[in-house]
């Protein structure tokens, strides 16, 4: 028997199953990053000394990464709009750009990390760097996860467009919501770790 409401919304809730599912998952992610941010606040406020963050880290690289991630967030929602309009070529273009954005973000991040390691700055150095590596590392893992999903939906997953377009559109929406969330986390990480 088919599971109802996988691609058409249930009338009384107005939502499809995957959409509720992803929002619930994002709620738990909010709690995860919320817990880590509260750890940051407690450790920083309780510290006797705290390094000048913007002197230790590279603000230009982080600004570049912020721009990259925000642009990729825009391209994935443009990809969704394209799917909804039935323009599958435009969809592939925008999703491709999103993937490039995610990959570029990781490349910049790798440069940043190797630069820190080269200066002998590692997680064990002090609690600021410990938090920096843990928070950005976890965020980078989220980027990797999103990249894998987006790559699938750009490549082999696009076949579903012909067999079940409504469900495919739902998948793009869900992948997009996740990707925007990753962007939102970075929007907070950027000032908290680099600027304050």
């Amino acid at each position, binding site marked *: *028997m*088919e*599971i*109802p*409401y996988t691609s058409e919304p*249930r009338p009384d*809730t107005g*939502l499809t*199953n995957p959409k*509720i*599912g992803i929002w*619930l*998952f994002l*709620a*738990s*992610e909010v*709690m*995860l990053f*919320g*817990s*880590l941010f509260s*750890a940051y606040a*407690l*450790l920083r406020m*309780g*510290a*006797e000394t705290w390094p000048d963050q913007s002197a230790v880290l590279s603000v230009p690289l982080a600004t570049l990464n912020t721009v990259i991630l925000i642009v990729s967030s825009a391209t994935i929602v443009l990809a969704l709009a394209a799917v909804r309009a039935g323009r599958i070529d435009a969809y592939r273009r925008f999703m491709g750009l999103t993937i490039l954005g995610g990959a570029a973000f990781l490349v910049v991040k790798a440069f940043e990390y190797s630069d820190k390691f080269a200066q002998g700055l*590692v*997680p*064990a*150095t*002090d*609690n600021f760097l*410990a938090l920096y*590596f*843990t928070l950005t590392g*976890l965020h980078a893992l989220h980027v990797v996860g999103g990249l894998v999903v987006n790559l699938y939906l750009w490549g082999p997953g696009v076949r579903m467009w012909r067999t079940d377009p409504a469900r495919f559109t739902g998948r793009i929406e869900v992948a997009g919501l996740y990707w925007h969330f990753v962007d939102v986390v970075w929007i907070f990480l950027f000032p908290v770790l680099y600027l304050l």
Partner: protein
Amino acid sequence: MAGPSPWATHLSHAGPCSLAALRTAWLRYPNLLRRYLFSTDHKVIGLQYAFTSLFFLLVGFSLAVLIRWQQAYAGQPLPLLTLLVGEVNAPGGIMLPEFYNQLGAMHGTIMVFLGVVPLAVGAFGNYLVPLQIGAPDMAFPRLNLASYWFYAAGGVVMLASFFVPGGAAMSGWTSYPPLADFAPQGQTWWLAGMLLLVLSSLLGAVNFITTIVQLRAPGMTWFRLPFFVWTQLITSFLLLLAFPALQAAAILQGMDRLAGTSFFLPSGLMVGGQAVDVAGGGSALLWQHLFWFLAHPEVYVLVLPAMGIVAEIIANNSRKPVFGYRLMVYSIFVLGFLSFTVWAHHMYLTGMGTTISAIFQATTMIISIPSVIVLSALVLSLHGGSIRFNTPMLFALAFLPMFGIGGLTGLPLGLAATDIPLHDTNYVVGHFHYLVAPGTIFALFAGIYHWFPKITGRMMNETLGRLHFAGSLVTMNLIFFPMLMQGMAGVNRRLWDGGAIYQHAEPVLYLNVPMAHAAFGLALVQVFFIVNLFMSLKGGRRVTANPWEATTLEWAAPTPPRAHGNFDELPRVYRGPYEYSVPGMDVDFLPQHVPDAKAGA
């Protein structure tokens, strides 16, 4: 599956070099694998959860039996012990303190995270929620399969940790740093296993909530949901929003252990007379906050499904609607929310100021109100009923006073003035064991006896069931009540020698021996259950689809419910869940799916 397993016959002919045979078997029996191991049917997954978690309950309980033996006969050799746990852990049959600490930490971890929660949520929730709301399956069947396998993987990692150098985690089930930061590598395995279990719970919670919100059958409005479904909904929200805190904490502790950070290590920390070579500046209390932000809601994860099961069984066996259904639902909403605001009552001894302490004492006292409302409603549901005293009902009835004792003994722990002397004594152990063992586990047993006929089409044996019930009730009380007495006399928990080095423990030390004997007795009476469970699978009395004459939708499905789809055709719901003994009717129950015209006849 009738007759000898095709696996067994095939593999026995294959001989030792069976890789090719496995391949053949894989090709020949893909259906078998798909049906029993990698099925996406919620009922199969529910049963996988059930058997795995019952296995872990047995493992966790065995550790507890060893603990009780050690408490009663500390330092005495038991040759069998070397055989069981190896020369490393018990040279000459004498249990080493290091191994004793592993027993304590892993008993708690296994019982809570691998036994009770997976049985209450993974097994009962998975099997019953789609049936009770009239759905063909869970909303995300493949995600469901993934949650089970993450859980199984977490279990394997936890068990494997006993065999790594230095043994399993030994810093208590709470894994407090700085101790846990310096524990042998078993602690890292504990953290890895915990991350897998957290992942499993999160996926499960997403699935449960979506299922309950989206897949309710036509006519199944919110206030026609059986109370059990409500408890699963709230439980899922607790899992979803509380577990990430432990996820974060486990990541931080993992960094401390593997990358040399000092999230939980303060400056100037000395270990064994030596200054520790770390950056410092961390806070050990940060772990406690994050841990208990999960672990207090986790208490309600243990309790709520039990309340749900008991409510179903009491309504059915007293042939009456539950008393104050809506009030009970509102109560567990309040309970669920407040459970996020009480966590620091586990931390009164950490030197927090009186203001914060007062806030947490207030929320702790407030949260007892909804619990009392639910418990009172369940007791009042019995009033005026024509009660059937069968095995599930006996367990459900015993749940009420046992859970009551657990709850009431919790009040002194919720108030700082009385908590300070009682903290970390056996009183605490007695208190939460009353909640979880003769409380939650009794409810789970009740559920197994109650829904067994739906799953198998056969009844479990009533005599064996009663023996199991009476034996468990008596022995559990003989184990846990003396703990309260010892604790009030000031006996600390987690003592390898059972408290022998403390003079003030002297008057209550003798209790360790009867407690140990009661634990052995409890182990023995579980044999009734295990025999009953397996014997009834084949030999139980055959029954129809609705032997208890119950009203909720799972009894409207064929027995066993259809693979992938449950019902012959999806039901429609016409009324609330507990329409028993409606005046003016020929029968004393009105199932939810029977239209008014037919029911009225």
